[in-house]
């Protein structure tokens, strides 16, 4: 994790070659990720604590924006209930490209300890997720590590951003479908 010096100009041994335009765009995108405030439950408190005095989020260039049109990252922190799932999807759709999703906490990853009738068992049933962050509630440093992991992921992408998320499914008829 202690990778303080990031060489933005190198390709870091990737299978694809990034052009310098890609690297410039990725440098810009990764260093100013603006999250959408999507705190749902207890993990929201840890997200706020990570944005507060001790674990400052602003040093990564993040500013929490309330409007989906102005946000890049959607940090889903907390349990997504079935009543709310429609609005989560709607807000995800309203975010403008390029957008990424961090699923924070066990409730957002897989439904967590709430294995009940009213929780969505994992946010990735309805929204494609880039980074999964386990914990209940994860420490603020963990959230910042996830953000740094997302930054690493962004730097590896080419600027036209073909989505590469876990939801790469094959339907019963054999057609490859993807949750976008």
């Amino acid at each position, binding site marked *: 994790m202690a990778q303080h010096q990031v060489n933005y100009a190198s390709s870091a*041994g990737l299978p694809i070659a990034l052009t310098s335009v890609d690297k410039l765009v990725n440098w810009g995108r990764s260093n100013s990720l603006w999250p959408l405030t999507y705190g749902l439950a207890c993990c929201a408190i840890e997200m706020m604590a990570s944005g507060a005095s001790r674990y400052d989020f602003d040093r990564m260039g993040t500013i929490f924006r309330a409007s989906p049109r102005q946000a890049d990252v959607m940090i889903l922190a907390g349990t997504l209930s*079935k009543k709310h799932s429609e609005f989560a999807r709607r807000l995800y759709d309203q975010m403008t490209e390029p957008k990424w999703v961090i699923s924070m906490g066990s409730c957002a990853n897989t439904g967590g300890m709430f294995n009940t009738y*009213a929780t969505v068992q994992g946010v990735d049933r*309805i929204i494609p997720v880039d980074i999964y962050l386990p914990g209940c509630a994860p420490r603020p440093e963990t959230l910042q590590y996830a953000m740094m992991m997302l930054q690493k992921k962004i730097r590896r992408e080419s600027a036209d951003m073909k989505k590469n998320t876990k939801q790469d499914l094959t339907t019963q008829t054999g057609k490859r479908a993807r949750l976008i």
Partner: protein
Amino acid sequence: MRKYVPKDNVQKKAYYTDRYHVVPTVPQSEVKSGLYFDTILTTLGDAVNFSSIQLGQLVIHINPEDNFQVMKTLKESCGYLQCSEQSAVDYLAKDNEFELFWQLLNVSVAKRIRVHCRLANGAAIESIEPLFKSANFAEREMFDMFGIKVNNHPFLKRILMPDDWEGHPLLKTYPLHGDEFASWYEVDKIFGKEYRDIIGPENRDPAKIDIEDTKRFSRVGYEVPFGTEYNGEEENDIEYSETALVNYNKKTSKQLDERR
């Protein structure tokens, strides 16, 4: 043939009860005459079917038709100005009845009373919202969770579940993981029924392990021995051992089924 599982109470039950186990009960004492709670009982008169003192609180049982009158008396004559809580207990499997309870608080004397009544399945209860405004939300929650209708409530609508939910969750017949309607609710709502087989059913097994899972962990492939420096450049191959690791997700074999 599969074993008969009674469907009137699908909650978890103890798998073993000792044959000679005697279940103790919470101590209930009689209301002593002349003390504070006795004055309450005399004020209420014969609306009270049964009364006792449990753990410092007076518990009275009434008929469901009298609930508004009893609450009115308690509020105006006895000073119980706050209805702290109100809900129901599902006894449909045993007696085909609900047991409703109201918890009242008297702030000036610092005493609490719990009022119980037994409501038959399908009957409705009179709302006490004109007396205690907290009943507005509490009765809506009772309706949402149990399906108990409340007469003369200003706004009886589902409160905790979505408005188009079918089923009343806290009934004993409702499974914890939700019935079929519940499990596809969000997929149907957002994407439509066609996406049911694209997204797939919910994974309700918390112990499910997928051999592909670790491929996406961060730093996998870049592990270094304990104590050495991390330079983040060399990648090691991930080895999955089929002999040492057991795949628990496979279905049980025919041999095990026969032995069962």
